[in-house]
């Protein structure tokens, strides 16, 4: 038996091609069964996420099975001959290494992301339930999950937040701990502030206040997020109670000055206040950061932290690959 993998991902195929091969989670088992009916193939697993679709097979002749699988897919999706360029093909040990890289998040769009581990596990479980796995793929996937865990434990491939929104949320948690007692105010109903606020809510933030020059837009966003709209000339009153302020208005000059915060310090009993300024030009005057209990991060500071985390993850790739090679070398996986 030989192991093989045929796949396409965000690097090799645009979304309009990827979406044609996407398999919904409930259909993963059926797709694996279909795969296993291919001539020569005895086992099959289909992995499908928003960024990739991969077919893993155990067949007596890997190269022959690849040709058959490609032909079947091309025919089924009525693709032209050029579509083949979107596929990558891995056989034997290459396929095993590839799966370990996928499970470890090394092949993901956001390097080191952890969601892929669960998605691959789900795909494997579906194939297992459909009875399309055997000695080759069972050992391969079990090994890949072990390697994935080892990579995440022994390296810092998943450490740090790599997006501005996540950096802001992590900082909020470093300041306030659990966010269940934290209240958030959004100034300006822009997309970026909505995404950041949503992340805060998903991590437990208690309530959201939305203030915007157009009250209708503030109301619409507040409704979307289960929050409360505040008139733009009343945001200073709301400042007395909130813990996090996310600002992204289109104002041409600073909107929040030191005096605005000084005014409410006493009423706030000097509790910590976290300002996230993602507007350009900045909405919050840099002087505000001089107030003792204020933590101010603008878009550059957040982006720099996200970029540093991305760089740190990049530096870990070699270490991760060494672990994968060492772990796979320990075993004589069938099909490789």
């Amino acid at each position: 038996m030989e192991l093989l993998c045929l796949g396409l991902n965000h690097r090799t195929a645009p979304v309009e091609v990827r979406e044609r091969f996407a398999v919904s989670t409930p259909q993963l088992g059926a797709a694996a069964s279909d795969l296993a009916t291919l001539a020569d193939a005895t086992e099959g697993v289909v992995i499908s996420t928003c960024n990739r679709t991969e077919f893993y097979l155990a067949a007596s002749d890997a190269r022959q099975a690849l040709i058959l699988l490609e032909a079947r897919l091309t025919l089924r999706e009525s693709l032209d001959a050029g579509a083949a360029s979107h596929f990558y093909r891995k056989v034997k040990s290459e396929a095993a290494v590839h799966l370990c890289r996928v499970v470890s998040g090394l092949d993901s769009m956001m390097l080191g992301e952890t969601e892929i581990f669960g998605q691959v596990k789900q795909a494997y479980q579906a194939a297992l339930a459909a009875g399309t796995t055997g000695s080759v793929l069972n050992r391969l996937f079990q090994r890949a999950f072990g390697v994935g865990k080892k990579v995440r434990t022994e390296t810092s491939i998943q450490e740090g937040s790599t997006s501005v929104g996540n950096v802001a949320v992590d900082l909020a948690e470093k300041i306030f701990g659990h966010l269940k007692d934290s209240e958030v105010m959004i100034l300006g109903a822009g997309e970026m502030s909505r995404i950041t606020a949503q992340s805060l809510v998903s991590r437990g933030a208690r309530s959201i206040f939305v203030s915007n020059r157009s009250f209708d837009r503030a109301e619409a966003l507040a409704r979307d997020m289960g929050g409360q709209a505040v008139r733009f000339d009343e945001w200073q009153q709301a400042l007395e109670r909130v813990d996090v302020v996310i600002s992204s208005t289109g104002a041409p000059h600073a909107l929040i000055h030191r005096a605005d915060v000084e005014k409410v310090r006493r009423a706030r009993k000097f509790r910590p206040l976290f300002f996230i300024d993602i507007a350009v030009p900045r909405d919050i005057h840099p002087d505000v950061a001089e107030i003792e209990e204020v933590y101010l991060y603008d878009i550059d500071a957040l982006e720099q932290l996200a970029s540093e985390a991305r760089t740190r993850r990049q530096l870990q790739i070699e270490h991760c690959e060494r672990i994968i090679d060492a772990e796979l070398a320990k075993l004589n996986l069938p099909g490789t």
Partner: protein
Amino acid sequence: MDRWFLLIATLLAAIGGTWGMISVHRGTRSHWTVAWMVAVMLCQLGFLSVRGQLRTACPLHDLGEMLVFLAWSLTLFYLLIGPAYRISLLGVFSAPLVFVLQSGALISGLFTVSPQRDPSPNLFHSLHSATSVLAYGALALAGVAGIMFLVLDRQLKVHRLKSGLFRNLPPAHQLLVSLERLLWLGSGLLTLGIVAGFLMPPTTPLHSHLIVAMAVWVGYAALLAVKTLRGLTGRKLALAAVAMFILSLVVFARV
């Protein structure tokens, strides 16, 4: 025997603290800190138990014993509060202070090598000494939490967030909550200690250390009153907790 217990406790605190700091520097959590501190406390208990038997009273008769009792109290509160609030790093910060206190106790002259039996043990005297030193343990730990907050606050302010220490420090809010609870606990115990001090036999003169202890109590009570009624920034509360603990050590010089 008592000296051996103290020596081992001091060495364990030094090793535990250094181990923890190396872990933190590497950016990993020191899972063994709690175990090291449990071992430190067992040795401290061994020391205090031997001294207590020799004295046939609470072993708080010389400055050396008081420093060890204070180190034990600090360790005890860390073990009660640290793991429960998931602030195991507090142990890494506490271990050096335990080491310093116990090393101080080992300095010749502070520590009576052959302790005498207390000829007239008095309940209120023992209660005064024990609750006061326990109070100092809680207040010392509040100071340690204050230092941790100041480090975290500084890192958050200047956006220096790459260090292993930053990753391992608990959230600022959690540190401030622990600090405030320790201040309340320490002040409560100090109140008991002072009341017991006034209930000591009338033949005992009003020691100058009792006056200093009252001044310390007033200081902490004022700090808590301001924090509760008016509010205080985290930095000011932390600075006050650290400064007041250092100043309050004057009490020991007056013993």
